[in-house]
């Protein structure tokens, strides 16, 4: 892909830059769409209509209008805050989130960086988002922000363990950390997807999905910004586009864990019908559709389940998810040895 770009462009650095910016072309429209979808899904689940006026058809341009409004807003920085860290945190958050998209194979022809340690890299680089949330919470000089940031770091550090072990189950079954190779191994029909590989990988997927919800702070694990207790959590003091950057990161993170889940368990860019509707362009279509499906499930859960309490959150992780994940990992390995 980079080589093709280099043939048309005057400088290799420019080709690299464009190659690196390609996921942005997917992520930005996706975020605008997902925020609108979240409003629509929540509205319909509560027997409302949601945004209906902006743009005509079902308020489709509501989030575009919101984004333009946010850019115009005054940039408010609290006077007793740590100015530099306060201003820097939103950008660091999106940087950490976007860096992980580098190893997502969007199609059989496009992957940002062909890393052999892709799955491992994603788990490592997303920890920058945790740091940026801590930075934002501390720099705001606000009790609610700090409490929200504390909860985030405790939550993400804990739930990282079941996530890693669930991903490791897939690695044990496939024998590679390269996400492109994992996608290629699942080509063929729907029954070649890893979710149907063994019953224990199905359990691994359930564990992955639950703990990834906690990793991206979605309900029922959205304690870092629980409105009823902490006003807005770590981004209480943020407004305008800086707040918008945190929103962008949150939605990009949701997309990231959904895409990773579909690569690891649901065949990535492979078509479910074998050779029908498959190819590099269809690959992008399938990848995004699979990602959007899990995004929809996340929204569905958000308006269905109540939020957990802090101690329950830790109980779920340490007493249930982690033991289950480790036993399941051993069973996956045994299955691979026997069959």
């Amino acid at each position, binding site marked *: 892909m980079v080589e093709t770009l280099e043939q048309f462009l005057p400088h290799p650095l420019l080709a690299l830059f464009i190659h690196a910016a390609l996921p942005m072309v997917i992520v930005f429209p996706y975020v605008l769409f997902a925020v609108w979808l979240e409003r629509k899904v929540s509205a319909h689940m509560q027997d409302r209509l949601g945004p209906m006026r902006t743009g005509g058809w079902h308020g489709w341009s509501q989030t575009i209008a919101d984004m333009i409004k946010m850019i115009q807003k005054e940039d408010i920085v609290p006077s007793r805050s740590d100015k530099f*860290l306060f201003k820097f945190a939103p950008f660091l958050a999106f940087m950490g989130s976007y860096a992980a998209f580098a190893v997502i194979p969007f199609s059989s022809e496009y992957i940002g960086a062909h890393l052999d*340690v892709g799955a*491992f890299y994603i788990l490592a680089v997303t*920890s920058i988002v945790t*740091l940026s949330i*801590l930075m934002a919470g*501390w720099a705001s*000089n606000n009790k609610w922000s700090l409490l929200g940031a504390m909860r985030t*770091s405790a939550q993400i550090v804990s739930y990282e363990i079941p996530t890693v072990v669930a991903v490791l189950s897939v690695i044990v079954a496939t024998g590679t950390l390269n996400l492109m190779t994992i996608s290629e191994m699942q080509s063929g029909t729907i029954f070649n997807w890893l979710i149907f590989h063994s019953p224990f990988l199905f359990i691994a997927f359930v564990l992955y999905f639950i703990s990834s919800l906690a990793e991206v702070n979605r309900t029922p694990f959205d304690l870092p910004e629980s409105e009823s207790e902490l006003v807005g959590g770590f981004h209480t003091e943020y407004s305008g586009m800086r707040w918008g950057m945190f929103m962008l990161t949150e939605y990009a993170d949701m997309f990231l864990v959904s895409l990773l889940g579909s690569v690891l368990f649901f065949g990535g860019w492979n078509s479910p019908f074998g050779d029908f509707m498959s190819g590099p362009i269809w690959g992008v279509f399938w990848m995004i559709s699979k990602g959007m499906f899990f995004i929809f499930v996340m929204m569905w859960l958000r308006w269905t389940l109540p939020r957990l309490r802090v101690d329950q959150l830790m109980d779920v992780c340490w007493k249930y998810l982690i033991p289950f994940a480790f036993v399941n990992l051993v069973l996956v390995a045994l299955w691979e040895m026997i069959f």
Partner: protein
Amino acid sequence: MDLYVLFFYFFALLTVISAFVVVFARNIVHAAFALMFTFFGVAALYVLLYADFVAVTQLLVYVGGILVLIIFGVMLTTRMFSVEMKTGTLNILPATIFTAILAGILIFVFSVTDWGVVPDQEFDTTVYGIGTLLVNEFILPMQVAGVLLLVAMIGAVMMAARERSKSQSK
């Protein structure tokens, strides 16, 4: 200029400058956050040395684990109890002597070492090699490291459990 060289100088500067900030920042939280860039720069240098697995491990262990814990601890001590923690200059004489000795040793090692420069080679997979070595040749060190971590974990749980039973008995 060669892209490789450009990237090397960028990340080398990032590492060194942020390391200076870690040492000279008066605000301890600023120092902790600057440490993130140091770790990140070191990881990038590993990538430039074709050690992808080590680079990602560096990110996961230092940025994702250790740094989050450091900042967690630092945040609990400052601001929350409105005590500004500043680093002061203490023990100038012993510090100077030890730093001079350490710098001497480092410069000595730096000048004695035979810096074998590997010519540009294709990016090769390192994961399989590391994995095979870990479970064959270096199985004992790996197991010992695992036991060490287990002991540390049990120790932490013991300490936490003892404090809990004390507070319950009150």
